[in-house]
């Protein structure tokens, strides 16, 4: 029996029949199929049109030959979802787009890594580049390292030169997760960008009086004749009362009131009661050695 002379359609039909009869003993199957060859030669190019589908032909063969029908075929087990996704051409299209855009991720992940690693660093150049060593050139080089490494890894991965692909994917996902799970980092990144605004703001205001950066806690006014004045009310250039800023807290501070009964905090010198009393022990006390001369 030479099946080599059969045309392609006939050979395919024969093969399909063989599959349908696969459960039969080999010699039985061979003898059945032997006969069919002649029909196939007659059938020419379209065996299915003349002989019916291979399944139906095989079923009729079995029935008329007194053979038991084929065992009902089980549906092929459902492919696991990820395998069906893999086969889907849309997945392939999506993956190829992702692959094209991968360089964007390489840059982004390097930036993410850099930010995560330098979150403690407060001082920056221009609010963006962290100041690590103090030498701008060196810092730029150091900061460029993650970018260079990320791009190199990406390119090598693309050329399939790197093993452990799942590991790298997992690392990427972990990096994204770090960003999501640590909101503080996000705030810090945002803060970094806004620091540039604060850099030019005025120095923070401090409560109370300062003279040349030193806190003033009391003022001792003397008149032209060299006498210490009492309950002198002082105001600044805007007319605002000068307040040393400690007045409200100290319980021993001798309160001074205006005629309306409101407490004043800009009457100097500030006097303090002896603790537990309501008497100022030394109303004329001044800092040691202070003895201004009369002016005239």
């Amino acid at each position: 029996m030479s099946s080599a002379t059969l045309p392609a359609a006939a050979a395919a039909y024969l093969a399909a029949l063989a599959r349908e009869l696969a459960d039969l003993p080999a010699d039985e199957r061979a003898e059945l199929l032997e006969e069919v060859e002649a029909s196939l030669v007659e059938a020419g190019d379209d065996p299915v049109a003349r002989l019916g589908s291979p399944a139906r032909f095989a079923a009729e063969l079995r029935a008329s030959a007194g053979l038991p029908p084929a065992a009902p075929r089980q549906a092929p087990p459902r492919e696991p979802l990820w395998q069906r996704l893999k086969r889907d051409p849309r997945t392939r299209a999506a993956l190829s787009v992702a692959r094209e855009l991968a360089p964007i991720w390489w840059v982004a992940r390097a930036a993410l890594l850099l930010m995560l690693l330098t979150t403690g660093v407060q001082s920056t150049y221009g609010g963006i580049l962290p100041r690590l060593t103090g030498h701008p050139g060196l810092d730029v080089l150091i900061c460029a390292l993650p970018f260079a490494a990320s791009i190199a890894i990406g390119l090598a991965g693309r050329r399939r030169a790197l093993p452990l692909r799942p590991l790298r994917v997992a690392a990427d996902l972990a990096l994204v997760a770090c960003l999501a799970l640590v909101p503080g980092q996000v705030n810090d990144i945002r803060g970094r960008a806004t620091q540039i605004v604060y850099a030019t703001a005025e120095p923070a205001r401090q409560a109370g009086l300062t003279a040349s950066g030193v806190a003033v806690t009391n003022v001792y006014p003397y008149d032209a004749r060299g006498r210490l004045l009492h309950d002198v009310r002082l105001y600044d250039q805007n007319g605002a009362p000068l307040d040393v800023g400690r007045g409200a807290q100290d319980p021993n501070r001798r309160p001074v009131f205006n005629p309306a009964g409101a407490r004043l905090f800009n009457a100097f010198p500030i006097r303090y009661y002896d603790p537990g009393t309501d008497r100022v022990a030394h109303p004329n006390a001044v800092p040691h050695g202070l003895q201004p001369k009369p002016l005239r």
Partner: protein
Amino acid sequence: MTSMDRSQLLRGVLDAAVLAVVRRADGYGYDVVRRLRAAGLTDVGDASVYGTLRRLYRGGALTSYVVPSDEGPHRRYYGITERGRAQLDEARATWEEFERTLDALLQEEEAMTPELTA
């Protein structure tokens, strides 16, 4: 009669038809198919004949031998055996009795509804 009925009839008598064809002359599978169709059983299926041949052979009603050929496939020929002849005679007897019975039935029908006769 619908085609479905014809095929059921055919199934019942195919053994006898195949035996009769092979008794006249040995033949290979497709040859038997051709001769059956030439005799008037135009809608007999190739698969039905092949299966029947194999079954009759297994049952001992047919013998088979291969004729080698230099060009083209070797052909498996079937010939009738003694048992096959006996089976065929039995089939003929059964058929004739069946035919008589059915004829009688159909004639009664004809008598009762004359307008249906063609």
